[in-house]
């Protein structure tokens, strides 16, 4: 148990730091923090041009989806970077618990997602003069954490596909684009075709964004609890499927000796 905890905590921490160009923090700012704010501004002005929703809609939507970026890209990079540095085989051949290994890598990424979302929310609100009731702060923190976890669940699925497919960065981008389009982040769900808004119910972010918008509009944490429950459930489902796929693809890759070739 102690060994598993060690892999979870120390392995996860080192893997997380390695994501940023080997311990250089300036990439954190230019990859995650600044784009999260410029993205909010782009969609807020797009919304003004289209006359669909107000700035609050876009600030909340894009701040919450900012939690998805570290989850999707960070988790996928934990696999592709291992392959790039030729350490993936060593990792796979080790007797370490896969659960501890991947959850250890997922935890800092999820917290990171929540921090980026909080930063985007704060700066976006200040720039666009969006008012958030003080009573909503703590519930919003909970909402962002739950959404970050749920996005990391999808990130684990994404990472598992990295064992089979070399272009995992491409898949990360596609997933992010799809969330921007279909999860009610920038286009209200009632403007989407019925089949697309139905798919959105099974995506991370959809329920989290709705809960965050409710909180900003004055709802209490109890009011949005069902939405947060749904978001948590979606995240758990993706994380479970992702961990299963990691195991499956690992066994297949060892059997076919394709681990370094994917």
């Amino acid at each position, binding site marked *: 148990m102690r060994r598993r905890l060690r892999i979870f905590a120390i392995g996860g921490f080192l893997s997380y730091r390695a994501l940023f*160009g080997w311990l*250089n923090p*300036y*990439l954190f700012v*230019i*990859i995650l923090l*600044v*784009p999260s704010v*410029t*993205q909010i*501004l*782009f969609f807020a*002005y*797009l*919304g*003004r*041009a*289209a*006359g*669909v929703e107000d700035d609050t809609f876009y600030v909340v939507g894009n701040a919450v989806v900012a939690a998805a970026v570290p989850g999707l890209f960070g988790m996928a990079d934990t696999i592709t970077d291992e392959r790039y540095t030729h350490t993936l085989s060593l990792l796979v051949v080790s007797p370490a618990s896969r659960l501890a290994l991947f959850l250890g890598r997922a935890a800092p990424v999820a917290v990171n997602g929540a921090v980026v979302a909080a930063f985007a929310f704060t700066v976006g609100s200040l720039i666009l003069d969006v008012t958030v009731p003080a009573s909503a702060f703590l519930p919003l923190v909970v909402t962002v954490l739950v959404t970050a976890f749920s996005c990391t669940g999808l990130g684990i699925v994404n990472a598992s596909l990295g064992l089979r497919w070399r*272009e995992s*960065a*491409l898949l990360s*981008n*596609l997933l992010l*684009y*799809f969330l*921007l*389009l279909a999860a009610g982040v*920038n*286009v*209200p769900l009632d*403007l*989407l075709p019925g089949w697309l808004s139905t798919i959105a119910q099974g995506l991370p972010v959809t329920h989290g964004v709705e809960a965050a918008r409710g909180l900003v509009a004055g709802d209490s944490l109890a009011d949005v609890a069902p939405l947060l429950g749904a978001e948590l459930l979606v995240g758990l489902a993706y994380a479970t499927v992702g961990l299963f796929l990691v195991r499956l693809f690992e066994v297949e890759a060892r059997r076919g000796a394709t681990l370094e070739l994917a």
Partner: protein
Amino acid sequence: MRVVRAMVAGWAIHFKQESRNPFFLWIVICTPLIYATMAYFLFRGGTEGPTLVAAAIGTGVMGIWSLTTTAAAAALQQRRRMGILELLVAAPLPFWAVLAPITIAISALGVYSLAASLLYTRLLFGVSVGIEDWVAFVVAVPVSIASIGMLGFMFAAAFIRFRGAWAVGNLFEFPVWTICGLLIPIAVLPAWVEPISWVFAPTWGMNALRDAALGSGSPWGAIAMCVALSVVYGALGALLLRIFLRSARNRGTLALT
């Protein structure tokens, strides 16, 4: 003449090479598709906004910029990682004549972006894409792409010292999408933004393509601005390259990240 021949050959080989990069291809095709879809739903659901044809062209230019700002900015880093940067710098050809065709070839992949965006809007959403002035449009496409590629060249030269050049270039993705009138009318933005947008080639490329397609004005002024900006970007990029390369050679750091 030797320089021109090398640049044309360099452009052709890099265009073919980058056309086989699945990541680049998916980015230039998927970016406009996603944003064209978003624009379609938003502008149909809203009460105002540019026409969907302008939005289709805008999302095409967004795809061009998206690839240029990331891939072109990192072009030097990629050569360094491949271990051929020293060879390219040591070649008798001026280094700007080696690098510029690479960045223009990358932005030229954007022609897929423009085509995908217009086709998608026509086929899936049934929006008729009529081109008012075909001559101007045919001229505007390569001129716009070349000017955006030259901006990428200047970025590549300016970010040569950054190990994460692709990420620094990526910083400009949303800001340029926002201020250059690609999808958002400039009238919606604060007044102080407009003069800033004038120094970015996508602004003039978009104006040229939109005016040629919709007949909303003469596109030739915007085309001339694209040409003028290309020359300015080229001169500034060449100057920056000269300074940074001399510094790197003096210190022996050319191959270091």
